[in-house]
């Protein structure tokens, strides 16, 4: 599948589909298996300085055409994570370390450790919508985003990706603040919640969660398109991709590669290989030599 090769956010991928952060990427064996089954790279679960157990279940709710989650950033802490990366890297494909923190200093510490562990790039989680003091709370402040990105770019040698939130009034100002990064990753989950009428209660233990899956594809596409069109940044698209058509829409909206998360639930593990096959047939039918010829072609 040589013509599915892409260069995206400073790294080379044999296949353009990347496992999104937080889905089947806490355990190194899981990442390895998904990489061997057709993902071009894997982003780890977001890792912080200290370990966290996350929230009590219910931490996910099926909403019909999507998933709401409020995991609460469970993670073993950066010092306990090197083994999982080593395990995942046995697949011979890039592993990207996702990290979260509340200030530039901590982000830098995490990125340096990730770099030591051998990741191909770091992805800054500036967008988790459901944990106080992290994620969106950091990522909706352009000055802070700018500071974090430039601190990292000035200190580490591997590429830096900034993962942004759709839950903002003005994506362009945030994306602009992150423009020193090697790629912006759009989008994290959309704020939402679920209520049970028999329990008369929110379902998620955290009440609020983040919506992912097919439901949010139009939202992600729009933000990718807008940021690419207005700012010309390098983009990795994510949000509701479950078929090769979805992936192509993101490419045509301006993404250089794409990530898949919730579709591992809705479509199963075969999702990456099916997307690869579908992209290949489309390219064959319409005489497209390399996927990147289609990047941004829908922008007008």
């Amino acid at each position, binding site marked *: 599948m040589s013509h599915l090769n892409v260069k995206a956010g400073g790294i080379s991928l044999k296949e353009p589909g990347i496992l999104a952060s937080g889905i089947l*990427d806490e*355990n190194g064996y899981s990442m390895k298996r998904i990489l061997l089954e057709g993902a071009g790279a894997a982003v780890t*679960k977001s890792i912080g300085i200290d370990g966290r157990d996350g929230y009590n279940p*219910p931490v996910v709710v099926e909403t019909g055409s999507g998933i709401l*989650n409020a995991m609460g950033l469970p993670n073993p802490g950066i010092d306990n994570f090197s083994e999982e990366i080593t395990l995942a890297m046995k697949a011979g494909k890039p592993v990207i370390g996702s990290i979260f923190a509340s200030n530039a200093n901590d982000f830098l510490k995490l990125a340096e450790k990730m770099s030591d562990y051998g990741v191909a790039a770091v992805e800054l989680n500036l967008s988790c919508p459901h944990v106080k003091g992290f994620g969106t709370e950091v990522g909706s402040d352009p000055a802070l985003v700018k500071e974090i990105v430039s601190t990292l770019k000035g200190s580490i040698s591997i590429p830096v990706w900034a993962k942004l939130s759709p839950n903002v009034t003005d994506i362009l100002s945030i994306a602009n603040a992150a423009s020193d990064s090697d790629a912006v990753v759009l989008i994290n989950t959309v704020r939402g919640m679920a209520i*049970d009428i028999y329990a008369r209660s929110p379902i998620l233990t955290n009440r609020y969660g983040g919506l992912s899956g097919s439901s949010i594809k139009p939202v992600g596409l729009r933000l990718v398109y807008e940021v690419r069109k207005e700012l010309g940044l390098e983009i990795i698209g994510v949000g509701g991709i479950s078929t090769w058509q979805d992936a192509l829409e993101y490419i045509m909206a301006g993404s250089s590669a794409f990530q898949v998360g919730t579709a*591992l639930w809705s479509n199963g593990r075969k999702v990456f290989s099916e997307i690869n096959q579908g992209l290949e047939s489309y390219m064959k039918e319409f005489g497209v030599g390399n996927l990147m010829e289609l990047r941004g072609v829908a922008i007008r």
Partner: protein
Amino acid sequence: MMQHVKILRKEIETPTVFSLYFHWDVKVEPGQFVMVWVPGYSEVPMSLSSTGKEKCLTVKMYGDTTKALNSLKEGDIIQLRGPYGKPFTRVKGKTLLVGGGSGMASMRPLINEESTGIVAARGQDELLFADDFSKGNAICVTEDGSRGIKGIITAGFENLDLKSFSMIYICGPERMLYAVFKMLHGKTENVEFSLERSMKCGIGLCDSCSVDGFQICKEGPTFSISEVEKMGEFGKTRLDRSGKRVFF
């Protein structure tokens, strides 16, 4: 998606185990499970211990959530989602059902005249569903020797001809499964294990239940002995709630 059922009746099985019966118009196969939500507490995986028109949860009290389930009574509502997971393979002929702790729950729907049980517990009070087997077909193993063989579960296999069973089903804590696995390994192929790991999502997304890249909630919980054999993590390491790799 979250569903609700009404409790028809509750039965006390042992001092620490009780069953909740309810109607639920959904097809469930032995070995599958549901995620049971107790608002204000947590959401936990539970096998169906009855899979006909009338369904049943058989619960062993460990912590807050299972204790909260114990306070429910006839007419109360249970919130659950599922059924999830891959069922046991059904076979014709003689079967051996091996369970420790609440492990017998998922196997109760498999009990018939041709099945033999190895039921293990600390003491006779805690033996679960031993009396559901045909007379003489339940081999009891207790740690204190209060009923049947004194010892741990592997002792129950001693006088059995393994090859005479079309299938051996095993469910219980991973340490127990691992002990049985080591004993059966190389001796017979028709063995299925139902694995138990901590589960947060139940639908194959969160990675908390994974063993060797397999999501137990989706690709399991039942696995054949040849699948289990290839699992480097089985019986050795697991991730704790935070995702930290720990040893059994």
